[in-house]
């Protein structure tokens, strides 16, 4: 549907803000370079204050970068105002024009482009059908539910057939159930429309479900870029591992490499883990272990003491102490398995492939 899918490139982008209290300048975004493929769905993910929204607003044109250049479809766009950029944004608060009905909201941008009445009507009706709001065009915005308002906001952006669609945490005002169904909707519509999308969120499951690629940001800097799988299974830092899903971190020492596995000494015990090429023999390392890939057993690698044991339905949740390091374990499908109680001693086990060093 889009006239032309456009890619976005950020070259050494920085944005400097002044702290309102201390009046000191700080980097909200620092020396960020990104390449976003045409037609792909890319998520900027990170905790609040990591610079993801600032990055998005620089692409939209509301903020001007203090360093670097932004390219849209190969053209530098730094000096263009938001109304001159081939981007359309879906706002967190939807930002529907409250004095217009649904039709006029969606038609607003088309009218500014001076299209004739019939074309506008056809386009608006088509798009409303795409987002599932047929027959609602005469309603006022306050007669809609949150999810419907969200669809109008999406329709209003899509109808302009922008080179890039920008989303600023669009689902954060919806309740949990709706959030899940809307995100599948967004993904479907984006793929049907074949449009480039950049999506800002702090919700990791949203990012995983939607994206071709996830860009994790931390304190204004890109921490890791990759597919959801790459990011989940091979986080490059403790921050990324912790931010995407739950993670346990075990401090240890790399003893030697055996094939593609490495042997790490943790609390005096030798443990086999994968993904170790980057860690030199003899150096200190951290092993990342996902709670769901770990189980408790009477025999295993590392001895632990159970301090919390709760039945969560789908899994048994344990908090265990390994020395003075607390680990979390999700033992899935607990029915019929041995359940350890608080105070019990046990061992943890895991497949070498599900642990890796960072």
């Amino acid at each position, binding site marked *: 549907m889009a006239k032309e899918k456009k890619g976005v490139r950020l070259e050494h982008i920085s*944005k*400097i803000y002044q702290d309102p209290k201390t009046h000191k*300048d700080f*980097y909200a975004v620092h020396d960020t370079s990104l390449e976003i493929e045409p037609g792909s769905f890319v998520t900027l993910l990170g905790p609040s204050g990591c610079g993801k929204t600032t990055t998005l607003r620089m692409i*939209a*044109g*509301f*903020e*001007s*970068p*203090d*360093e670097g250049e932004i390219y849209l479809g190969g053209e530098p766009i*730094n*000096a*263009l*105002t*938001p*109304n*001159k950029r081939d*981007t*359309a*944004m879906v*706002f*967190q*608060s939807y*930002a*529907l*024009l*409250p*004095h217009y009905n649904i039709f006029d909201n969606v038609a*607003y*941008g088309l009218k*500014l*482009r001076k299209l004739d009445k019939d074309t506008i009507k056809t386009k608006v009706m088509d798009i409303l059908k795409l987002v599932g709001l047929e027959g609602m065009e005469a309603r*006022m*915005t*306050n*007669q809609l539910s949150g999810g419907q308002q969200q669809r109008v*906001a999406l329709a*209003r*952006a899509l109808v*302009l057939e922008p080179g890039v669609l920008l989303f600023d945490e669009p689902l954060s005002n919806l309740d949990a159930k709706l959030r899940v169904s809307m995100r599948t909707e967004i993904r479907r519509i984006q793929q049907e429309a074949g449009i480039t999308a950049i999506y800002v969120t702090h919700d990791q499951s949203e990012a995983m479900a939607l994206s071709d690629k996830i860009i994790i940001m931390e304190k204004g800097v890109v921490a890791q870029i990759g597919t959801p799988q790459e990011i989940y299974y091979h986080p490059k830092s403790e921050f990324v591992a912790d931010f995407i899903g739950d993670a346990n971190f075990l401090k240890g020492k790399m003893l030697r490499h055996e094939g593609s596995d490495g042997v790490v000494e943790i609390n005096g015990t030798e443990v086999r883990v994968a993904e170790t090429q980057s860690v030199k023999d003899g150096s200190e390392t951290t092993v990342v272990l996902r709670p769901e890939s770990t189980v408790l057993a009477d025999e295993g690698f590392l001895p632990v003491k159970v301090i919390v044991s709760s039945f969560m339905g789908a899994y048994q949740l344990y908090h265990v102490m390994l020395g003075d390091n607390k680990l979390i374990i999700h033992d899935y499908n607990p029915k019929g398995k041995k359940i350890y109680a608080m105070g019990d001693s046990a061992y943890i086990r895991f497949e070498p492939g599900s642990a890796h060093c960072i």
Partner: protein
Amino acid sequence: MATTQGAALDRKKLMADPIMVTTIVVLITFLTLFILYPLAILLIDSLYGTNGLSLETFRRVLAMPTFTRAISNTLKIGFVVGILSTLIGLLFAYVEVYVRLHKISGGLFKVVSMLPVVSPPFVLSLSMIMLFGKAGLITRFLLGIYDNNVYGYWGIVIVQTLTFFPVCYMMLKGLLKNIDPSLEEAARDMGASRMKVFTSVTLPLMLPGLGNAFLVTFIESIADFANPMIIGGSYDTLATSIYLQITGAFDKEGAAAMAVVLLCITLAMFGVQKYYLESKTAATLTGKASRARMLIEDKSVTVPLTVLCSLAAIFVIMMYICVPIGALFPTWGYKFTPLTFKWFGQVFSKYHGLKAFRDSFRLSLIASPITALLSMIISYLVVKRKFKAKGFIEAVSMLAMAVPGTVLGVGYIRGFSGGLFHTGVLGGIYGTGLILIIVFVVRSLPTGTRSGISALRQIDKSIEESAYDMGADSFKVFMTVTLPLIKDSFLSGLVTAFVRSITAISAIILLVTPQYLLITVQINEFAEKGAFSIACAFATILILITYGSVLLMNLLMRFFGTSRKIEGEE
């Protein structure tokens, strides 16, 4: 760190928007020319006389015993009126917010808060004289006191307090409503009595707000011209001294120096109020109450408080009613029956009433849409846009709030009678209707801007951003999004500007030329001559006009207002 590229890009983006740039340039020129320049010329004139740079003029006026007395008079009155108004305002606000009110008292409260808005500034002085003066209805005919002197210190204090306390009442009511009732309930729960709760929780939370109310009243009081003029007698205040220095002594340099003194006082107060107290008020009272307050229903509390406030309210209302009644008596103080409309007739037959109303009406009608639009544009720029001169625009338009009308009037005389910097440029506007319109605009701009700013702050910034993002330029965004969303505020700004203009006197009286008859100036003249009946007739018609326009506005809002449609959201 280099923020230069970002700043340069922001500037470039701004320049890509010619309507916006033009608007900003026009605004800056207007504000500089008609607010900053007249004040600057006062300072220049009083420092730079015939013998070069010297403090000579200041030395001269400060040596006048009448002037130094006027300073202490003004400060004394401002102080007393500020405290009295704040206390009475607090009482009213507390009773309204905390006590279950009878319907009738509730209605009385509403009327009291409304009256000072729609009435010309000197109405209370008129009725004070007519009720309590030498031939006062109450003093002479009810109590049999002859020779009661209302003129002077106490007259001004009473009249100003009654005029300004409703402003405090409205301000403090807003603050009290923002106190979370659970704070007070927690104190009650821990064993504090109602009195203790008030002194240990409510009062400390309100303290900055009370200070704020006091200073606002203080500024209003020392800037007030009309009341001291009519009821002050020989008790001169700064505003009246400046006026007399020009109209009586023809000493324009002296008046300029005096105006600088008055300006310095109000600016200092304004600075404290704006930058210290306002932020403190916001800091102690954040957010809305979590739920409704349990109103006090204990009869031993409600009855005395309600009676006290209702009596006060009735007294104030009586003062206002006295004006139309005064216009109906054949001869005030001597002959009360039969009631007659002859004064109203004389307004038009003998005293050129038609021309006065036409002139006032026409000038105010031209000024008010300009004011309303300007203040909405300023609010939009201040709240929604980012650019370098924004601070200047905001500061200067707020500064106008702290400038007493008399000071502005003198500034215009000095600044424009001989043209810009006495060079003759732009001198043509002096003595015309144009300069009167400009004064009307400047005088009403701060109120309009303030209400526009608070209306715009409630609108999510991203609504305008979304329009901008969809391809609208600033002008389009303002016309299709901002203005329709603040239609109510715009309409009320329009009416407020109209009411303020048609009832204005302090700056106007210095600038008006015989070719324009303005109602307020006429009323002032008649009141000074002691022709109270005709003054009352003029004032009554004026009140009807202003009240009528407020009613009209409410009607318009009901039919065209946006607020109801938008309120359903959230």
